[in-house]
């Protein structure tokens, strides 16, 4: 039976379904556009306005039961290549019930005059509350000319602070964020996936945002603020959302200062090593981003309100990434709708979507490897399998037409035999993969052996797992599920390589 094109009576249905398919391409194209801009950072950056500026820096470390990681963090900070006496460490002990106070006492004795202990009587309210306790004390006297907000487990490379402060020589710069790299030792499949993800999400995306002049998010693990900036945004961190770092990034830029990413300032952090822990962390981040989207609802796509945050390009990238799971579902609906109608455009749309995906995947993966070769050596497998083996098989099948000949001489024809169920699954895979990733996470919680969890994750893909979390965040926000601060547990296994 020849393929039945859309009948003249139904052009609107056909066009609408094709439009849904096209919408599903937005995240891929937005990420591609970001990656294309990265190289421009080589010629358009802030280095011309840097100078040898070494302000007095107060590091504020929020610590809620961080005895296992705090000591190593303080030791790394005391190894900084920075003028003597130019920095101090303020640990805000969030009413810890573990050995955090003892660790601090030992470090205060070892580094007299450099480490300070602030203790809250009530803990567990969240990082923003803890930070605000520290900021209140730090800003109460005039010693600090800049403040580094960080996480208790983060290890700073010796030159990282110097690489960040030089940008604050330009008073238009309000804050600078570092490249937070995954540093678990020993690592596993999940932490290596995160290591690769951070090349794309930080080293690439944030350089592109530097070029555009507007940063979407300061890393919570290492963000340096000028004192003037902190005072301009009220001297405190927002406590109303789960994404306090993004909130600070937005308010800094709304106050008229720029926010920069310094990709050569490297710090190391321990990231979740299980799907359940990663789900918890990223659900918080994703819900926070939805809250930010709502909180700054009067800005989006309105360049007259703010040239950067309200910019059309920034808005398109923001919403494309935020809505990736929804767009994936819409795309699947479009393809399945066309397929159900026996429309030849179903195959055309499917092939176009995946062929574009192949080209973007090849470019982004190869370029990510070249941006950070050290991480690529460690996480090349995770880079290659980021979309998952099933998605890679679909890509391969489209690259090698002979893969189809046994099953279907002309895949544009209505499917028969094995393809009767395989084609709809492939058409809907961008959505089904999210469901599959969620199932893998639940199986892990049910006690699935790690080797099997890893095999299944490689099959469905880390990207699908991220999309599943973003989808779950939307559901949680829609259902108004209570938000609470779920701390990411750290065990102290991060190391600075070499």
């Amino acid at each position: 039976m020849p393929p039945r094109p859309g009948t003249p009576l139904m052009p609107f249905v056909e066009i609408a379904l094709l439009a849904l398919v096209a919408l599903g391409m937005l995240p891929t194209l937005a990420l591609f556009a970001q990656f294309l801009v990265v190289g421009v950072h080589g010629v358009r950056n802030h280095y011309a306005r840097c100078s040898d500026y070494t302000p007095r820096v107060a590091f504020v470390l929020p610590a809620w039961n961080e005895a296992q990681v705090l000591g190593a963090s303080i030791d790394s900070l005391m190894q900084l290549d920075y003028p003597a006496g130019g920095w101090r460490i303020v640990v805000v002990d969030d009413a810890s019930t573990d050995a955090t106070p003892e660790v601090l006492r030992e470090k205060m004795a070892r580094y007299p005059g450099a480490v300070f202990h602030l203790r809250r009587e009530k803990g567990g309210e969240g990082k923003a509350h803890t930070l605000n306790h520290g900021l209140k004390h730090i800003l109460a006297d005039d010693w600090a000319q800049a403040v580094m907000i960080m996480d208790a487990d983060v290890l700073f490379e010796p030159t990282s602070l110097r690489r960040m402060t030089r940008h604050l020589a330009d008073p238009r710069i309000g804050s600078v964020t570092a490249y937070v790299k995954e540093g678990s030792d020993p690592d596993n499949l999940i932490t290596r996936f995160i290591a690769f993800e951070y090349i794309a999400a930080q080293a690439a995306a944030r350089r592109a945002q530097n070029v555009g002049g507007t940063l979407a998010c300061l890393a919570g693990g290492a963000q340096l603020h000028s004192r003037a900036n902190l005072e301009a945004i009220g001297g405190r961190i927002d406590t109303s959302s789960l994404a306090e770092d993004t909130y600070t990034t937005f308010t800094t830029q709304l106050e008229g200062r720029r926010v920069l990413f310094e990709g050569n300032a490297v710090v190391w952090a321990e990231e979740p090593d299980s799907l359940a822990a990663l789900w918890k962390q990223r659900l918080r981040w994703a819900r926070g981003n939805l809250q930010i989207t709502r909180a700054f609802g009067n800005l989006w796509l309105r360049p007259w309100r703010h040239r950067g945050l309200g910019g059309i390009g920034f808005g398109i990238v923001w919403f494309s990434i935020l809505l990736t799971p929804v767009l994936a579902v819409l795309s699947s609906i479009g393809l399945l709708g066309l397929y159900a109608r026996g429309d030849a455009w179903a195959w055309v749309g499917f092939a176009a979507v995946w062929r574009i995906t192949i080209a973007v995947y090849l470019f982004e993966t190869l370029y990510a490897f070249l941006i950070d070769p050290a991480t690529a050596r460690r996480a090349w497998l995770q880079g290659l399998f980021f979309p998952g083996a099933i998605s890679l098989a679909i890509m391969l099948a489209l690259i090698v037409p002979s893969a189809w000949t046994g099953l279907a001489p002309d895949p544009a024809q209505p499917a028969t035999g094995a393809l009767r169920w395989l084609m709809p699954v492939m058409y809907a895979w961008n959505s089904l993969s999210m469901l599959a990733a969620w199932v893998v996470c639940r199986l892990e919680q049910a006690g699935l052996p790690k080797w099997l969890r890893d095999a299944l994750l490689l099959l469905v893909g880390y990207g699908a797992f991220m999309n599943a979390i973003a989808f779950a965040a939307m559901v949680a926000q829609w259902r108004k599920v209570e938000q609470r601060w779920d701390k990411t547990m750290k065990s102290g296994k991060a190391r600075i390589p070499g």
Partner: protein
Amino acid sequence: MGQDDEIRQGANSGLDEPDDAFRQLLAADRRTERGLLWRELIALAVVLAALLLRLRFGA
């Protein structure tokens, strides 16, 4: 000094450590960033070559 007036000088920080660490780091980082441009061109060229090969031989 014009625009340079806006640039804060290290001496203003109250700290005094004359060394050339700043210049060395800046030069190294500028090289790194310029390198990213070349690496991007290499990545684009490889993908373009793969697409052309696919079009030429893959049909």
